[in-house]
C-alpha cells in the first residue's frame, strides 16, 4: 500500500512537472470554464435572482466539462507520443498509474475551481465567504468522485476512434448521481443551509466517491492490459 502511494506520487510528480512546463491543460480548462459561464449568462438572459438560482448548476456544468478536458488530456498526449507503453512497462502497480493520474486531475480541477469561483462571485454578485469551508468539503468530495470515473473512462475513450465524443457519452450518465448531488449541496449551501439539510446528499457523495474510487483502481488494471 505504501509503495503504491509512493509510486503514484512519482506519476503525479511527472504529470505535474509536464503541466508546469506547458501549462496547456490548466489554461485551456480555465478559459473553457470562463466561456461556459459567459455563454450561460447569454442563454438565460435573466435577472440577478434567477441567475443566483441557476448558478450552482452553471458552476457544475463548467467544472464537469473542465474535468472531462483534464481527464482526456491526461491520457491522450501519452497515447499519441507513445509514452503510455513506457509507463506500462515500468515495474509498478497499474493501480498506482491510475491514482497518479487521478491526483493530477483533481489538482488541476481544484486549481481551476479556485480561479473560477471568485469570478462567479464577481459576475453573479454572490456571497461565498461564510460558506467557504463547507464548499471546500463538498467540492473536494465531488471532484474526487467525478474524477475517478472520468479518469477511468478517459483511459477507455482514448483508445476509440471517436475519443473526444466517447468520453462524455460514457461518463456523464454514470456520473449523473454525483452531479445531481453536487448541484443540490452547492445550492443548499448558497441558500444558507447547514450540514443537517443535506445529510442524504453528503452520504451519497461520500459513498459514491469511495465505491467508484475503489472500483476504478481495480478495473484500471483490466483496461490498460494489452
Amino acid at each position, binding site marked *: 500500500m505504501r509503495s503504491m502511494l509512493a509510486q503514484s506520487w512519482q506519476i503525479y510528480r511527472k504529470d505535474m512537472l509536464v503541466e508546469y512546463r506547458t501549462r496547456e491543460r490548466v489554461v485551456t480548462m480555465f478559459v473553457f470554464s470562463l466561456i461556459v459561464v459567459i455563454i450561460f449568462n447569454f442563454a438565460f438572459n435573466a435577472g440577478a435572482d434567477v441567475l443566483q438560482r441557476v448558478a450552482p448548476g452553471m458552476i457544475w456544468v463548467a467544472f464537469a466539462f473542465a474535468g472531462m478536458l483534464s481527464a482526456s488530456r491526461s491520457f491522450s498526449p501519452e497515447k499519441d507520443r507513445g509514452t503510455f507503453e513506457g509507463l506500462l512497462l515500468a515495474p509498478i502497480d497499474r493501480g498506482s498509474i491510475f491514482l497518479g493520474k487521478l491526483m493530477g486531475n483533481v489538482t488541476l480541477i481544484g486549481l481551476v475551481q479556485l480561479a473560477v469561483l471568485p469570478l462567479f462571485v464577481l459576475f453573479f454578485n454572490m456571497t461565498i465567504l461564510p460558506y467557504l469551508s463547507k464548499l471546500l468539503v463538498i467540492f473536494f468530495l465531488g471532484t474526487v468522485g467525478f474524477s475517478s*470515473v472520468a479518469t*477511468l473512462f478517459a483511459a*477507455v475513450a482514448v*483508445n*476509440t*476512434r*471517436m475519443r473526444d465524443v*466517447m468520453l462524455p*457519452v*460514457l461518463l*456523464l*450518465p*454514470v456520473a*449523473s*448521481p*454525483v452531479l*445531481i*448531488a453536487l448541484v*443540490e449541496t452547492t445550492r443548499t449551501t448558497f441558500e444558507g443551509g447547514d450540514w443537517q439539510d443535506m445529510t*442524504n*446528499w453528503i452520504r*451519497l457523495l461520500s*459513498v*459514491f466517491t469511495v*465505491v*467508484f474510487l475503489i*472500483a476504478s483502481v481495480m*478495473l484500471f488494471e*483490466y*483496461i490498460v*492490459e*494489452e
Partner: protein
Amino acid sequence: MAGIAARLRITPFGLICLVGLVATLYLSLIWAPRERVMGDVQRIMYFHVASAWIAEFAFVLVGVSSVIYLWLRERRWDIVAYSAAEVGFVFCCFVMITGPIWGKPVWGTWWTWDPRLTFSMILWLIYVAYLMLRVYGDDLPQVKTFLAVLGILGTIDIPFIHFATLWWRGLHPDSLVMTEEGLGAGMEVDMRIALGVSAVVFTLLFFYLMSRRMALERLRDETEALRERVEHRHPGSVGI
C-alpha cells in the same frame, strides 16, 4: 401449427412466448377491468411496467455477466452481456415510448422530471453508451474488456441513480408523484393478475430474444473463423 412453426424457424420456446403474448394482450386489453379515473389509457401500464422491470433486470444481467467475463475471459459471457444489453435497450426504449403516451392524457404533459422518469432516462443513456462503445470500438482488441468495465460500473451505479433521482425530486412536495405508488394497494385483483402475467411473459420474451441474439452472435463468430480459414488457405479469395 408445428409445421408452420418449423418453416418459420420458431422454436418451441418462441411458440410459448407467442401464446403468452396473445394471452397478455387479451388479459390486459379486454379482461382486466377499466380503470375508473384514467380510463382505457391505463391499460398501457401492463406493458410499461413489465418492460421497465426487464430494462432494469437486463442491465443487472449485463453487470453480472461482465464480472464473469473479466474473471474467466470466455467469449460466451461477453456474448451474454452484449445480447442482454441490446435486448434490454429495446425494452428500455419501449418504456420511454409508452410512458409519455400514458402521461399526456393522465398528467397533461408528455414528460416531467419525476424520479422514475429521470431514472429511466439515465438508464437509457447508459444503455446507449454501452452500445455506442460496442460499435465505435469494434476495431479494438480490448473492446470486450472496456464493455465489461462499463457494464460493471453501470450496474454499481443503479442504486446511486435511484437515490439521487428520488431525493432530487422527492424533496419537492409539489412534484407529481407517480401513481405506481398505489400499485399493490390500490389495484384490483384482476389488474394484478394481468400485470403479473404480463411481467412473466415479458421475462420469457426477453430470454427468448436473448437466446436468438446470442445464437446470431455465435454464428457471426463461426463465419469469421471460417472466413479466416479460407483466407489462410487461398489468400485473396474472400472479397470482404
